[in-house]
Protein backbone atom coordinates (compact mmCIF):
# COMPACT_ATOMS: atom_id res chain seq x y z
CA UNK A 1 0.00 0.00 0.00
CA UNK A 2 2.82 2.30 0.87
CA UNK A 3 4.29 1.76 -2.52
CA UNK A 4 0.96 2.54 -4.15
CA UNK A 5 0.68 5.75 -2.17
CA UNK A 6 4.14 6.74 -3.21
CA UNK A 7 3.30 5.99 -6.77
CA UNK A 8 0.20 8.14 -6.57
CA UNK A 9 2.32 10.96 -5.20
CA UNK A 10 4.95 10.51 -7.79
CA UNK A 11 2.58 10.18 -10.69
CA UNK A 12 1.56 13.81 -11.09
CA UNK A 13 5.15 14.87 -10.73
CA UNK A 14 6.21 12.48 -13.44
CA UNK A 15 3.32 13.56 -15.60
CA UNK A 16 4.30 17.15 -15.24
CA UNK A 17 7.83 16.34 -16.05
CA UNK A 18 6.82 14.45 -19.14
CA UNK A 19 4.50 17.22 -20.17
CA UNK A 20 7.35 19.63 -19.91
CA UNK A 21 9.58 17.38 -21.92
CA UNK A 22 6.99 17.03 -24.62
CA UNK A 23 6.46 20.74 -24.79
CA UNK A 24 10.15 21.28 -24.99
CA UNK A 25 10.32 18.78 -27.79
CA UNK A 26 7.62 20.63 -29.69
CA UNK A 27 9.47 23.87 -29.15
CA UNK A 28 12.65 22.31 -30.45
CA UNK A 29 10.86 20.94 -33.47
CA UNK A 30 9.44 24.35 -34.15
CA UNK A 31 12.88 25.83 -33.85
CA UNK A 32 14.32 23.40 -36.35
CA UNK A 33 11.49 23.97 -38.74
CA UNK A 34 11.86 27.68 -38.42
CA UNK A 35 15.51 27.21 -39.18
CA UNK A 36 14.59 25.24 -42.25
CA UNK A 37 12.17 27.80 -43.47
CA UNK A 38 14.62 30.54 -42.81
CA UNK A 39 17.06 28.75 -45.06
CA UNK A 40 14.41 28.33 -47.71
CA UNK A 41 13.58 31.96 -47.44
CA UNK A 42 17.25 32.87 -47.85
CA UNK A 43 17.49 30.62 -50.90
CA UNK A 44 14.49 32.21 -52.43
CA UNK A 45 15.92 35.62 -51.73
CA UNK A 46 19.08 34.68 -53.57
CA UNK A 47 17.08 33.20 -56.41
CA UNK A 48 15.02 36.31 -56.67
CA UNK A 49 18.18 38.40 -56.87
CA UNK A 50 19.64 36.18 -59.50
CA UNK A 51 16.48 36.20 -61.52
CA UNK A 52 16.50 39.94 -61.35
CA UNK A 53 19.99 40.24 -62.73
CA UNK A 54 19.96 37.26 -65.05
CA UNK A 55 18.26 38.86 -68.02
CA UNK A 56 20.59 41.85 -67.84
CA UNK A 57 23.06 40.17 -70.11
CA UNK A 58 22.51 38.02 -73.15
CA UNK A 59 25.02 35.40 -72.14
CA UNK A 60 27.21 34.44 -69.20
CA UNK A 61 30.50 32.66 -69.09
CA UNK A 62 30.15 30.05 -66.43
CA UNK A 63 31.80 26.88 -65.23
CA UNK A 64 29.44 24.06 -65.84
CA UNK A 65 29.65 21.22 -63.36
CA UNK A 66 30.58 18.15 -65.27
CA UNK A 67 30.14 15.22 -63.00
CA UNK A 68 30.97 15.37 -59.31
CA UNK A 69 34.59 16.25 -59.86
CA UNK A 70 35.03 18.33 -62.95
CA UNK A 71 33.86 21.59 -64.28
CA UNK A 72 33.95 22.64 -67.87
CA UNK A 73 33.83 26.18 -69.07
CA UNK A 74 30.54 26.95 -70.69
CA UNK A 75 28.28 29.69 -71.70
CA UNK A 76 24.89 30.51 -70.34
CA UNK A 77 22.58 31.66 -73.07
CA UNK A 78 18.89 32.37 -73.22
CA UNK A 79 19.11 34.17 -69.99
CA UNK A 80 15.48 35.08 -69.99
CA UNK A 81 14.24 31.55 -70.12
CA UNK A 82 13.73 29.57 -66.95
CA UNK A 83 12.11 26.28 -66.25
CA UNK A 84 10.40 26.35 -62.91
CA UNK A 85 9.49 23.37 -60.86
CA UNK A 86 6.08 24.25 -59.62
CA UNK A 87 5.79 21.17 -57.50
CA UNK A 88 4.27 17.75 -57.81
CA UNK A 89 6.49 17.22 -60.86
CA UNK A 90 5.00 20.09 -62.72
CA UNK A 91 7.35 22.23 -64.70
CA UNK A 92 6.78 25.45 -66.44
CA UNK A 93 8.96 27.27 -68.91
CA UNK A 94 8.69 30.95 -68.30
CA UNK A 95 10.58 34.18 -68.42
CA UNK A 96 12.72 35.44 -65.61
CA UNK A 97 10.09 37.94 -64.73
CA UNK A 98 7.42 35.28 -64.41
CA UNK A 99 9.84 33.16 -62.45
CA UNK A 100 10.30 36.09 -60.13
CA UNK A 101 6.55 36.31 -59.64
CA UNK A 102 6.51 32.64 -58.79
CA UNK A 103 9.35 33.18 -56.35
CA UNK A 104 7.49 36.00 -54.71
CA UNK A 105 4.48 33.76 -54.37
CA UNK A 106 6.62 31.11 -52.77
CA UNK A 107 8.14 33.70 -50.46
CA UNK A 108 4.71 34.64 -49.31
CA UNK A 109 3.99 31.07 -48.49
CA UNK A 110 7.28 30.71 -46.68
CA UNK A 111 6.61 33.82 -44.66
CA UNK A 112 3.23 32.55 -43.62
CA UNK A 113 4.76 29.27 -42.58
CA UNK A 114 7.38 31.07 -40.56
CA UNK A 115 4.79 33.17 -38.78
CA UNK A 116 2.75 30.14 -37.92
CA UNK A 117 5.79 28.38 -36.59
CA UNK A 118 6.78 31.36 -34.49
CA UNK A 119 3.31 31.46 -33.00
CA UNK A 120 3.36 27.79 -32.19
CA UNK A 121 6.78 28.11 -30.67
CA UNK A 122 5.69 30.98 -28.45
CA UNK A 123 2.64 29.08 -27.33
CA UNK A 124 4.62 26.01 -26.42
CA UNK A 125 7.30 28.04 -24.70
CA UNK A 126 4.62 29.44 -22.43
CA UNK A 127 3.41 25.94 -21.79
CA UNK A 128 6.92 24.89 -20.94
CA UNK A 129 7.11 27.71 -18.42
CA UNK A 130 3.84 26.59 -16.90
CA UNK A 131 5.02 23.02 -16.71
CA UNK A 132 8.22 24.17 -15.04
CA UNK A 133 6.25 26.16 -12.49
CA UNK A 134 4.01 23.22 -11.86
CA UNK A 135 7.02 21.03 -11.36
CA UNK A 136 8.62 23.37 -8.87
CA UNK A 137 5.32 23.81 -7.10
CA UNK A 138 4.75 20.12 -6.66
CA UNK A 139 8.39 19.62 -5.78
CA UNK A 140 8.41 22.20 -2.97
CA UNK A 141 5.46 21.16 -0.94
CA UNK A 142 6.33 23.51 1.92
CA UNK A 143 5.48 26.65 0.00
CA UNK A 144 2.34 25.62 -1.76
CA UNK A 145 -0.51 23.71 -0.32
CA UNK A 146 -2.99 21.92 -2.45
CA UNK A 147 -6.42 22.63 -1.02
CA UNK A 148 -8.77 19.81 -1.57
CA UNK A 149 -12.31 19.44 -0.45
CA UNK A 150 -13.88 16.09 -0.78
CA UNK A 151 -17.46 16.15 -1.83
CA UNK A 152 -19.50 13.31 -0.51
CA UNK A 153 -23.10 12.58 -1.19
CA UNK A 154 -24.06 13.18 2.45
CA UNK A 155 -22.71 16.73 2.47
CA UNK A 156 -24.23 17.46 -0.86
CA UNK A 157 -27.72 16.54 0.30
CA UNK A 158 -27.35 18.36 3.60
CA UNK A 159 -29.34 21.48 4.42
CA UNK A 160 -32.76 22.70 3.66
CA UNK A 161 -34.03 22.04 0.24
CA UNK A 162 -35.11 25.12 -1.60
CA UNK A 163 -38.32 25.21 -3.47
CA UNK A 164 -38.34 26.93 -6.77
CA UNK A 165 -41.55 28.89 -6.89
CA UNK A 166 -43.43 29.30 -10.06
CA UNK A 167 -43.46 32.82 -11.40
CA UNK A 168 -47.25 32.85 -11.46
CA UNK A 169 -47.73 31.47 -7.99
CA UNK A 170 -49.58 33.63 -5.53
CA UNK A 171 -47.52 35.84 -3.26
CA UNK A 172 -47.92 35.60 0.46
CA UNK A 173 -51.24 36.76 1.79
CA UNK A 174 -50.04 39.10 4.55
CA UNK A 175 -47.81 40.89 2.12
CA UNK A 176 -50.77 41.49 -0.12
CA UNK A 177 -52.79 42.90 2.73
CA UNK A 178 -49.97 45.21 3.73
CA UNK A 179 -49.58 46.46 0.25
CA UNK A 180 -53.25 47.19 -0.05
CA UNK A 181 -53.22 49.11 3.17
CA UNK A 182 -50.30 51.12 2.07
CA UNK A 183 -51.99 51.92 -1.14
CA UNK A 184 -55.09 53.04 0.64
CA UNK A 185 -53.08 55.23 2.89
CA UNK A 186 -51.33 56.68 -0.04
CA UNK A 187 -54.52 57.36 -1.83
CA UNK A 188 -56.04 58.96 1.22
CA UNK A 189 -52.99 61.08 1.72
CA UNK A 190 -52.43 62.24 -1.78
CA UNK A 191 -56.02 62.42 -2.88
CA UNK A 192 -57.18 64.94 -0.31
CA UNK A 193 -53.84 66.60 -0.07
CA UNK A 194 -54.19 67.88 -3.58
CA UNK A 195 -55.99 71.18 -3.13
CA UNK A 196 -57.44 71.93 0.23
CA UNK A 197 -54.85 70.39 2.40
CA UNK A 198 -52.12 71.96 0.44
CA UNK A 199 -53.64 75.36 0.90
CA UNK A 200 -54.27 74.71 4.53
CA UNK A 201 -50.73 73.63 4.97
CA UNK A 202 -49.52 76.76 3.22
CA UNK A 203 -51.60 78.95 5.46
CA UNK A 204 -50.35 77.20 8.49
CA UNK A 205 -46.80 77.63 7.40
CA UNK A 206 -47.41 81.27 6.69
CA UNK A 207 -48.81 81.82 10.09
CA UNK A 208 -45.92 80.01 11.68
CA UNK A 209 -43.55 82.24 9.82
CA UNK A 210 -45.43 85.24 11.00
CA UNK A 211 -45.23 84.12 14.55
CA UNK A 212 -41.58 83.44 14.18
CA UNK A 213 -41.06 86.94 12.89
CA UNK A 214 -42.94 88.34 15.78
CA UNK A 215 -40.91 86.37 18.20
CA UNK A 216 -37.74 87.63 16.62
CA UNK A 217 -38.96 91.14 16.73
CA UNK A 218 -39.95 90.89 20.34
CA UNK A 219 -36.59 89.62 21.32
CA UNK A 220 -35.00 92.36 19.23
CA UNK A 221 -36.88 95.13 20.88
CA UNK A 222 -36.19 93.67 24.24
CA UNK A 223 -32.53 93.73 23.45
CA UNK A 224 -32.33 97.17 21.96
CA UNK A 225 -34.82 99.17 23.88
CA UNK A 226 -34.29 97.53 27.14
CA UNK A 227 -37.93 97.80 28.06
CA UNK A 228 -39.52 94.72 26.85
CA UNK A 229 -42.65 95.45 28.71
CA UNK A 230 -43.74 98.35 26.57
CA UNK A 231 -43.30 96.55 23.31
CA UNK A 232 -45.05 93.51 24.53
CA UNK A 233 -47.78 95.64 25.88
CA UNK A 234 -48.17 97.30 22.55
CA UNK A 235 -48.45 93.90 21.06
CA UNK A 236 -51.18 93.07 23.38
CA UNK A 237 -52.90 96.27 22.63
CA UNK A 238 -52.83 95.46 19.01
CA UNK A 239 -54.21 92.11 19.72
CA UNK A 240 -56.92 93.68 21.72
CA UNK A 241 -57.60 96.07 18.90
CA UNK A 242 -57.77 93.27 16.50
CA UNK A 243 -60.37 91.62 18.58
CA UNK A 244 -63.82 92.81 17.71
CA UNK A 245 -65.62 94.72 20.41
CA UNK A 246 -68.03 91.93 20.97
CA UNK A 247 -65.39 89.38 21.47
CA UNK A 248 -64.90 88.87 25.14
CA UNK A 249 -61.34 88.70 26.22
CA UNK A 250 -60.26 85.80 28.21
CA UNK A 251 -59.82 86.55 31.84
CA UNK A 252 -56.53 84.73 31.86
CA UNK A 253 -55.13 87.03 29.26
CA UNK A 254 -55.60 90.43 30.82
CA UNK A 255 -53.81 90.02 34.11
CA UNK A 256 -50.76 88.69 32.40
CA UNK A 257 -47.80 90.68 33.65
CA UNK A 258 -45.98 92.77 31.09
CA UNK A 259 -42.57 91.91 32.29
CA UNK A 260 -43.22 88.42 31.15
CA UNK A 261 -40.99 87.01 28.46
CA UNK A 262 -42.56 87.31 25.07
CA UNK A 263 -43.23 83.64 24.74
CA UNK A 264 -46.43 83.49 26.79
CA UNK A 265 -47.61 86.55 25.01
CA UNK A 266 -47.04 84.87 21.81
CA UNK A 267 -49.04 81.98 22.98
CA UNK A 268 -51.83 84.28 23.88
CA UNK A 269 -51.59 85.78 20.46
CA UNK A 270 -51.76 82.38 18.95
CA UNK A 271 -54.91 81.73 20.83
CA UNK A 272 -56.21 85.07 19.77
CA UNK A 273 -55.49 84.34 16.18
CA UNK A 274 -57.16 81.05 16.48
CA UNK A 275 -60.21 82.58 18.07
CA UNK A 276 -60.81 85.81 16.34
CA UNK A 277 -62.03 84.84 12.97
CA UNK A 278 -63.54 88.25 12.36
CA UNK A 279 -60.36 90.17 12.94
CA UNK A 280 -58.83 92.27 10.25
CA UNK A 281 -56.25 90.69 8.08
CA UNK A 282 -53.21 92.31 9.54
CA UNK A 283 -49.58 91.56 9.78
CA UNK A 284 -47.71 92.85 12.75
CA UNK A 285 -44.45 94.59 12.43
CA UNK A 286 -41.82 95.13 14.98
CA UNK A 287 -41.52 98.86 14.62
CA UNK A 288 -43.26 100.28 17.60
CA UNK A 289 -42.23 103.83 17.88
CA UNK A 290 -42.31 104.67 21.47
CA UNK A 291 -43.79 107.91 22.57
CA UNK A 292 -40.91 108.28 24.93
CA UNK A 293 -38.51 108.57 22.10
CA UNK A 294 -40.53 111.24 20.49
CA UNK A 295 -40.56 113.06 23.69
CA UNK A 296 -36.87 112.90 23.89
CA UNK A 297 -36.65 114.58 20.59
CA UNK A 298 -39.02 117.34 21.47
CA UNK A 299 -36.69 119.84 22.89
CA UNK A 300 -35.09 121.00 26.09
CA UNK A 301 -36.95 118.83 28.48
CA UNK A 302 -35.61 115.79 26.85
CA UNK A 303 -34.22 114.35 29.98
CA UNK A 304 -37.54 113.04 31.00
CA UNK A 305 -37.05 109.64 32.24
CA UNK A 306 -39.66 107.16 31.64
CA UNK A 307 -40.38 105.27 34.73
CA UNK A 308 -41.02 101.75 33.85
CA UNK A 309 -42.86 101.05 36.95
CA UNK A 310 -45.29 103.71 36.16
CA UNK A 311 -45.79 102.42 32.74
CA UNK A 312 -46.32 99.00 34.09
CA UNK A 313 -48.86 100.28 36.47
CA UNK A 314 -50.56 101.99 33.66
CA UNK A 315 -50.49 98.89 31.60
CA UNK A 316 -51.94 96.89 34.34
CA UNK A 317 -54.62 99.47 34.65
CA UNK A 318 -55.30 99.15 31.01
CA UNK A 319 -55.39 95.47 31.29
CA UNK A 320 -57.96 95.66 33.93
CA UNK A 321 -59.96 97.91 31.78
CA UNK A 322 -59.59 95.55 28.93
CA UNK A 323 -60.90 92.88 31.13
CA UNK A 324 -63.98 94.96 31.86
CA UNK A 325 -64.68 96.50 28.55
CA UNK A 326 -62.31 95.48 25.91
CA UNK A 327 -64.17 97.52 23.40
CA UNK A 328 -61.98 100.41 24.45
CA UNK A 329 -58.87 98.46 24.35
CA UNK A 330 -58.04 99.52 20.89
CA UNK A 331 -57.79 103.14 21.88
CA UNK A 332 -54.53 102.44 23.43
CA UNK A 333 -53.24 101.43 20.12
CA UNK A 334 -53.03 104.90 18.79
CA UNK A 335 -49.60 105.73 19.80
CA UNK A 336 -47.10 107.29 17.57
CA UNK A 337 -46.71 104.65 15.04
CA UNK A 338 -45.82 106.74 12.05
CA UNK A 339 -44.16 110.03 11.31
CA UNK A 340 -47.58 111.41 10.60
CA UNK A 341 -48.62 110.68 14.11
CA UNK A 342 -45.78 112.72 15.43
CA UNK A 343 -47.08 115.71 13.62
CA UNK A 344 -50.51 115.02 14.82
CA UNK A 345 -49.41 114.87 18.37
CA UNK A 346 -47.42 118.01 18.45
CA UNK A 347 -49.96 120.71 18.06
CA UNK A 348 -49.82 124.31 18.95
CA UNK A 349 -52.79 125.73 20.64
CA UNK A 350 -53.53 129.13 19.35
CA UNK A 351 -56.62 130.94 20.46
CA UNK A 352 -57.96 127.71 21.70
CA UNK A 353 -57.62 126.16 18.28
CA UNK A 354 -55.14 123.41 17.61
CA UNK A 355 -52.80 124.21 14.82
CA UNK A 356 -50.34 121.69 13.50
CA UNK A 357 -46.85 122.70 14.23
CA UNK A 358 -44.44 123.35 11.45
CA UNK A 359 -41.56 121.60 13.01
CA UNK A 360 -41.44 119.47 16.01
CA UNK A 361 -37.75 119.91 16.40
CA UNK A 362 -38.14 123.52 17.34
CA UNK A 363 -38.41 123.86 21.01
CA UNK A 364 -41.19 126.03 22.25
CA UNK A 365 -42.56 126.98 25.49
CA UNK A 366 -44.46 124.25 27.02
CA UNK A 367 -47.50 126.38 27.42
CA UNK A 368 -47.92 126.66 23.70
CA UNK A 369 -46.83 123.30 22.63
CA UNK A 370 -48.98 120.46 23.48
CA UNK A 371 -47.35 117.18 23.51
CA UNK A 372 -49.57 114.27 23.94
CA UNK A 373 -47.08 112.07 25.65
CA UNK A 374 -46.12 114.49 28.28
CA UNK A 375 -45.08 113.28 31.58
CA UNK A 376 -46.75 114.05 34.84
CA UNK A 377 -45.10 117.45 34.87
CA UNK A 378 -47.21 118.52 31.95
CA UNK A 379 -50.27 116.81 33.18
CA UNK A 380 -52.16 120.01 33.58
CA UNK A 381 -51.32 121.01 30.06
CA UNK A 382 -52.40 117.76 28.85
CA UNK A 383 -55.64 117.97 30.62
CA UNK A 384 -56.29 121.30 29.10
CA UNK A 385 -55.37 120.10 25.74
CA UNK A 386 -57.46 117.09 26.16
CA UNK A 387 -60.54 119.13 26.71
CA UNK A 388 -59.95 121.03 23.56
CA UNK A 389 -58.19 118.45 21.54
CA UNK A 390 -60.55 115.72 22.35
CA UNK A 391 -62.69 116.79 19.52
CA UNK A 392 -60.09 116.51 16.88
CA UNK A 393 -57.70 113.88 18.03
CA UNK A 394 -58.92 110.91 19.77
CA UNK A 395 -55.53 109.40 19.29
CA UNK A 396 -53.86 111.53 21.83
CA UNK A 397 -55.69 109.98 24.65
CA UNK A 398 -54.13 106.71 23.91
CA UNK A 399 -50.74 108.12 23.22
CA UNK A 400 -50.53 109.97 26.43
CA UNK A 401 -48.89 108.12 29.15
CA UNK A 402 -51.10 109.65 31.73
CA UNK A 403 -54.29 108.88 29.96
CA UNK A 404 -56.88 107.58 32.30
CA UNK A 405 -59.95 105.55 31.80
CA UNK A 406 -62.20 108.51 31.14
CA UNK A 407 -60.51 109.50 27.95
CA UNK A 408 -60.38 106.07 26.69
CA UNK A 409 -63.97 105.44 27.36
CA UNK A 410 -64.92 108.68 25.74
CA UNK A 411 -63.41 107.92 22.45
CA UNK A 412 -65.61 106.36 19.84
CA UNK A 413 -65.24 102.74 19.08
CA UNK A 414 -65.27 102.93 15.37
CA UNK A 415 -62.50 105.49 15.19
CA UNK A 416 -59.64 103.36 16.26
CA UNK A 417 -60.61 100.76 13.79
CA UNK A 418 -60.08 103.31 11.10
CA UNK A 419 -57.09 104.89 12.58
CA UNK A 420 -55.33 101.68 12.44
CA UNK A 421 -54.91 102.15 8.77
CA UNK A 422 -51.83 104.13 9.30
CA UNK A 423 -48.39 103.69 7.99
CA UNK A 424 -46.06 102.02 10.42
CA UNK A 425 -48.83 101.40 12.77
CA UNK A 426 -47.25 98.09 13.36
CA UNK A 427 -49.96 96.47 11.37
CA UNK A 428 -50.16 96.02 7.69
CA UNK A 429 -53.60 95.67 6.28
CA UNK A 430 -53.74 93.35 3.40
CA UNK A 431 -57.35 93.65 2.69
CA UNK A 432 -59.69 96.41 3.39
CA UNK A 433 -62.70 95.12 5.14
CA UNK A 434 -64.17 98.61 5.33
CA UNK A 435 -66.44 100.11 2.77
CA UNK A 436 -64.57 101.52 -0.13
CA UNK A 437 -65.86 104.97 0.56
CA UNK A 438 -63.51 105.42 3.46
CA UNK A 439 -60.05 106.15 2.14
CA UNK A 440 -56.97 104.94 3.84
CA UNK A 441 -55.43 107.33 6.19
CA UNK A 442 -52.02 106.37 5.11
CA UNK A 443 -52.54 108.30 1.92
CA UNK A 444 -52.91 111.50 3.82
CA UNK A 445 -50.05 113.96 3.74
CA UNK A 446 -48.13 113.87 6.95
CA UNK A 447 -47.90 117.60 7.36
CA UNK A 448 -51.58 118.20 8.00
CA UNK A 449 -52.89 115.01 9.21
CA UNK A 450 -55.29 115.97 11.85
CA UNK A 451 -58.09 117.82 10.21
CA UNK A 452 -59.00 115.54 7.35
CA UNK A 453 -58.42 112.54 9.44
CA UNK A 454 -60.65 113.78 12.09
CA UNK A 455 -63.40 114.44 9.66
CA UNK A 456 -63.27 111.08 8.23
CA UNK A 457 -63.11 109.50 11.53
CA UNK A 458 -65.95 111.52 12.74
CA UNK A 459 -67.95 110.42 9.81
CA UNK A 460 -66.96 106.92 10.37
CA UNK A 461 -67.69 107.14 14.02
CA UNK A 462 -71.10 108.63 13.37
CA UNK A 463 -71.99 105.76 11.28
CA UNK A 464 -72.24 102.54 13.12
CA UNK A 465 -69.15 100.50 12.90
CA UNK A 466 -69.40 98.75 9.59
CA UNK A 467 -70.33 95.14 9.87
CA UNK A 468 -67.37 93.16 8.90
CA UNK A 469 -68.11 90.21 6.72
CA UNK A 470 -66.70 87.24 8.50
CA UNK A 471 -64.74 85.73 5.71
CA UNK A 472 -63.36 89.07 4.57
CA UNK A 473 -62.21 89.98 8.02
CA UNK A 474 -60.47 86.75 8.42
CA UNK A 475 -56.77 86.86 8.41
CA UNK A 476 -56.17 86.02 4.84
CA UNK A 477 -53.11 85.13 2.98
CA UNK A 478 -52.70 86.23 -0.55
CA UNK A 479 -53.01 82.71 -1.73
CA UNK A 480 -56.11 82.14 0.24
CA UNK A 481 -57.65 85.34 -0.96
CA UNK A 482 -56.94 84.37 -4.51
CA UNK A 483 -58.48 81.04 -3.87
CA UNK A 484 -61.55 82.54 -2.35
CA UNK A 485 -61.91 84.84 -5.25
CA UNK A 486 -61.70 81.93 -7.58
CA UNK A 487 -64.45 80.24 -5.73
Amino acid at each position, binding site marked *: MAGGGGKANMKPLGGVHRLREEHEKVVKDCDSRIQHWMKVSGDYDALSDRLKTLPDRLSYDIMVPFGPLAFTPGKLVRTNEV*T*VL*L*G*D*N*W*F*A*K*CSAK*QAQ*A*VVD*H*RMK*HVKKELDDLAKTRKNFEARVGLAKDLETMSANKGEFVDIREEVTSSTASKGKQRIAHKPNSKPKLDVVVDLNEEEEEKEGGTGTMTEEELWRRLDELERLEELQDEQDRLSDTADTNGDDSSSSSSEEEKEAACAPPVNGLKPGWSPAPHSDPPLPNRKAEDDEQEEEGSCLPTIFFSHTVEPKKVRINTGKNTTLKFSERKEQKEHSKRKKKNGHSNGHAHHELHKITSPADVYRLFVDVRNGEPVPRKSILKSRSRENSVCSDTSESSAADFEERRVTGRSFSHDEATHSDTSDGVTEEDSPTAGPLLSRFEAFSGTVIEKDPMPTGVPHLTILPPALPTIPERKQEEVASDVTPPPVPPEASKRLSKFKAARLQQK
Partner: protein
Amino acid sequence: MADAIQKKLKAELEKYSQVQKDVSKSMSVRQKLETQLTENNIVKEELDLLDSSNTIYKLIGPVLVKQDLDEAKATVTKRLEYINGEIQRYETLLKDMEKRADDHREVLTSLQQELHKAQGRTGGKI
Protein backbone atom coordinates in the same frame (compact mmCIF):
# COMPACT_ATOMS: atom_id res chain seq x y z
CA MET B 1 -4.67 -19.05 -14.32
CA ALA B 2 -2.12 -16.32 -14.30
CA ASP B 3 -0.44 -17.82 -17.30
CA ALA B 4 -3.67 -17.86 -19.28
CA ILE B 5 -4.29 -14.29 -18.44
CA GLN B 6 -0.77 -13.44 -19.36
CA LYS B 7 -1.21 -15.13 -22.71
CA LYS B 8 -4.38 -13.24 -23.32
CA LEU B 9 -2.66 -10.08 -22.33
CA LYS B 10 0.13 -10.72 -24.72
CA ALA B 11 -2.24 -11.34 -27.60
CA GLU B 12 -4.17 -8.23 -26.76
CA LEU B 13 -0.99 -6.26 -26.52
CA GLU B 14 0.06 -7.43 -29.94
CA LYS B 15 -3.24 -6.43 -31.39
CA TYR B 16 -2.99 -3.14 -29.69
CA SER B 17 0.48 -2.48 -30.98
CA GLN B 18 -0.74 -3.42 -34.46
CA VAL B 19 -3.51 -0.91 -34.21
CA GLN B 20 -1.08 1.65 -32.99
CA LYS B 21 1.12 0.95 -35.97
CA ASP B 22 -1.78 1.36 -38.32
CA VAL B 23 -2.71 4.57 -36.70
CA SER B 24 0.75 5.96 -37.04
CA LYS B 25 0.94 4.79 -40.64
CA SER B 26 -2.29 6.41 -41.61
CA MET B 27 -1.15 9.44 -39.71
CA SER B 28 1.97 9.68 -41.80
CA VAL B 29 -0.04 9.11 -44.97
CA ARG B 30 -2.36 11.81 -43.94
CA GLN B 31 0.53 14.13 -43.26
CA LYS B 32 1.94 13.36 -46.70
CA LEU B 33 -1.42 14.09 -48.18
CA GLU B 34 -1.43 17.31 -46.32
CA THR B 35 1.86 18.36 -47.75
CA GLN B 36 0.73 17.30 -51.19
CA LEU B 37 -2.34 19.34 -50.75
CA THR B 38 -0.36 22.45 -49.90
CA GLU B 39 2.02 21.74 -52.77
CA ASN B 40 -0.76 21.31 -55.25
CA ASN B 41 -2.39 24.42 -53.95
CA ILE B 42 0.79 26.29 -54.61
CA VAL B 43 1.04 24.78 -58.07
CA LYS B 44 -2.47 25.80 -58.83
CA GLU B 45 -1.85 29.30 -57.70
CA GLU B 46 1.36 29.50 -59.70
CA LEU B 47 -0.30 28.11 -62.75
CA ASP B 48 -2.73 30.92 -62.43
CA LEU B 49 0.21 33.28 -62.59
CA LEU B 50 1.26 31.94 -65.96
CA ASP B 51 -0.34 32.54 -69.32
CA SER B 52 -0.70 30.69 -72.60
CA SER B 53 2.75 31.69 -73.84
CA ASN B 54 4.35 29.50 -71.23
CA THR B 55 4.87 25.84 -71.84
CA ILE B 56 4.03 23.44 -69.08
CA TYR B 57 5.78 20.15 -68.59
CA LYS B 58 4.92 17.22 -66.45
CA LEU B 59 7.78 15.09 -65.27
CA ILE B 60 6.76 11.52 -65.81
CA GLY B 61 9.58 9.20 -65.01
CA PRO B 62 12.73 10.54 -66.57
CA VAL B 63 11.03 12.64 -69.26
CA LEU B 64 9.28 15.90 -69.34
CA VAL B 65 5.99 15.63 -71.09
CA LYS B 66 4.69 18.76 -72.60
CA GLN B 67 1.26 19.67 -71.48
CA ASP B 68 -1.25 22.31 -72.22
CA LEU B 69 -1.79 25.00 -69.58
CA ASP B 70 -5.51 24.47 -69.33
CA GLU B 71 -5.00 20.75 -69.22
CA ALA B 72 -2.43 21.15 -66.51
CA LYS B 73 -4.77 23.33 -64.53
CA ALA B 74 -7.57 20.81 -64.83
CA THR B 75 -5.24 18.02 -63.77
CA VAL B 76 -4.09 19.96 -60.79
CA THR B 77 -7.60 20.75 -59.65
CA LYS B 78 -8.54 17.10 -60.08
CA ARG B 79 -5.51 16.15 -58.09
CA LEU B 80 -6.54 18.57 -55.40
CA GLU B 81 -9.97 17.02 -55.26
CA TYR B 82 -8.48 13.59 -55.00
CA ILE B 83 -6.15 14.66 -52.22
CA ASN B 84 -8.98 16.21 -50.33
CA GLY B 85 -10.99 13.04 -50.66
CA GLU B 86 -8.03 11.01 -49.47
CA ILE B 87 -7.60 13.25 -46.47
CA GLN B 88 -11.24 12.83 -45.60
CA ARG B 89 -10.98 9.11 -45.90
CA TYR B 90 -7.94 8.99 -43.73
CA GLU B 91 -9.59 11.17 -41.20
CA THR B 92 -12.45 8.72 -40.75
CA LEU B 93 -10.01 5.88 -40.82
CA LEU B 94 -7.97 7.51 -38.10
CA LYS B 95 -11.01 8.06 -35.93
CA ASP B 96 -12.04 4.47 -36.32
CA MET B 97 -8.58 3.29 -35.50
CA GLU B 98 -8.31 5.48 -32.45
CA LYS B 99 -11.56 4.03 -31.20
CA ARG B 100 -10.24 0.57 -31.68
CA ALA B 101 -7.03 1.52 -29.91
CA ASP B 102 -9.03 2.83 -26.97
CA ASP B 103 -10.98 -0.41 -26.79
CA HIS B 104 -7.79 -2.35 -26.85
CA ARG B 105 -6.32 -0.19 -24.16
CA GLU B 106 -9.29 -0.79 -21.91
CA VAL B 107 -9.06 -4.48 -22.42
CA LEU B 108 -5.40 -4.25 -21.70
CA THR B 109 -5.88 -2.42 -18.42
CA SER B 110 -8.53 -4.88 -17.29
CA LEU B 111 -6.30 -7.73 -18.22
CA GLN B 112 -3.46 -6.16 -16.36
CA GLN B 113 -5.64 -5.87 -13.26
CA GLU B 114 -6.66 -9.50 -13.58
CA LEU B 115 -3.06 -10.44 -13.92
CA HIS B 116 -2.18 -8.43 -10.84
CA LYS B 117 -4.97 -10.17 -8.93
CA ALA B 118 -3.85 -13.55 -10.08
CA GLN B 119 -0.31 -12.75 -9.24
CA GLY B 120 -1.36 -11.52 -5.78
CA ARG B 121 -3.38 -14.68 -5.24
CA THR B 122 -0.53 -16.76 -6.32
CA GLY B 123 1.79 -14.68 -4.18
CA GLY B 124 -0.57 -15.16 -1.25
CA LYS B 125 -0.62 -18.85 -1.91
CA ILE B 126 3.08 -18.90 -1.99
